[in-house]
């Protein structure tokens, strides 16, 4: 009889998101019990429980600072965005004028304003993540994840908005835009926070994370430049799908970088892993 396949996604999550020194034997325990006849549902329940444990622990032992950290992050986000919308409001009035007269100083200044507004969004992600991880230091990653979840929750009403109106063929594009932009927000927040927690220096990053980080920054720059080029009319604008795929690639790359940074943060000199390697070589 063939052995049942392990729930690979659950194991992958534990391996990537778990704290290595504890999760290595824990995964072993789960595998052992699964092999002994436990169900896939049981395996998933254990996985979710194990991953949620730091959040639960954080809330139980340092509830006040945990909540304050998340609220401070949300407040900063709200204030920052309010400030930006007031400061850059005039830049977005009659955008068509930029295309009509792209090379006037006024148009270029407005374009610069739009780019500054976009850059300020990225600065916000890093600042809010920094604030959250500063206020709650006991379980910084857990606070960061809850803060990212709070940002998603804040965007949920705008994601649901297209469903309220009459059916429209562009509804998919509209929902996809919100989902992708929310994913991008989450990715930027997680990368910013994990960067603060983990390293603060490029030299301390692993080779793959460094490569993905460079790719991600390049993607951001290209998207920004393309966006500016479309505004002045030098590049033809081919509908929202072009932008969407760019943002989707950015979000995907950012989330992958967040996973890599999370993983690097977890890695300890794990004797368990060495034993695993030894065991594999023994079998072969």
């Amino acid at each position, binding site marked *: 009889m063939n052995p049942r396949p392990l729930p690979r996604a659950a194991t992958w999550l534990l391996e990537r998101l778990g704290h290595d020194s504890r999760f290595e*034997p824990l995964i*072993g*325990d789960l595998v052992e019990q699964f092999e002994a006849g436990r169900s896939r549902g049981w395996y998933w329940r254990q996985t979710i429980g194990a*991953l949620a444990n730091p959040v639960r622990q954080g809330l139980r032992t340092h509830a006040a600072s945990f909540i304050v950290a998340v609220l401070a992050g949300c407040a900063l986000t709200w204030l920052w965005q309010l400030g930006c919308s007031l400061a850059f409001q005039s830049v977005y009035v009659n955008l068509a004028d930029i295309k009509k007269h792209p090379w006037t100083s006024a148009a270029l200044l407005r374009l610069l304003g739009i780019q500054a507004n976009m850059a300020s969004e990225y600065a916000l992600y890093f600042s809010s993540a920094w604030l959250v991880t500063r206020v709650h230091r006991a379980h910084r990653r857990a606070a960061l994840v809850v803060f990212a979840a709070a940002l998603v929750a804040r965007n949920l009403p705008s994601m649901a908005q297209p469903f309220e109106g009459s059916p429209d063929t562009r509804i998919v594009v509209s929902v996809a835009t919100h989902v992708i932009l929310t994913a991008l927000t989450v990715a930027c927040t997680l990368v910013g926070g994990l960067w603060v927690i983990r390293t603060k220096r490029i030299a301390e990053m692993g080779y793959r994370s460094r490569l993905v980080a460079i790719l991600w920054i390049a993607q951001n720059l290209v998207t920004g430049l393309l966006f500016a080029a479309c505004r002045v009319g030098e590049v033809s604008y081919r509908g929202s799908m072009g932008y969407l795929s760019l943002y989707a690639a950015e979000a995907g790359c950012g989330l992958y970088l967040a996973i890599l940074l999370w993983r690097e943060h977890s890695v300890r000199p794990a*004797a368990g892993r060495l034993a*695993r390697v030894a*065991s594999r070589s023994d079998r072969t």
Partner: protein
Amino acid sequence: MRNREFLGQHELMVMLAVLRLGKDAYGVPIATEIASRTGREMLQGSVYAILERLESKRLITSRLGEATPQRGGRAKRYFALTAEGHRQVRETQRALEALWHGLAKPVGAKP
């Protein structure tokens, strides 16, 4: 009066399970022992969280054991009580016995 810190309910359960299992105390039998003796099934992750907390308080120690194919080639982590751990368990037991002492009927029984 000396300021004493007693073990929490879950901490005590995990420590007693470790004590009962002796040299075979690793994640799976600890959780099984607690489930079979108390009827309360704990998440494996919670067991490890408690064990880690106890280890940080220097009440237990751990060592990595052998990796087996049944565990996907992953090592077991064995736990044992330290001298301070033994002392804390005894102290908690004494405190609980002192509180139980003199109660004629089981708690909740009708007079």
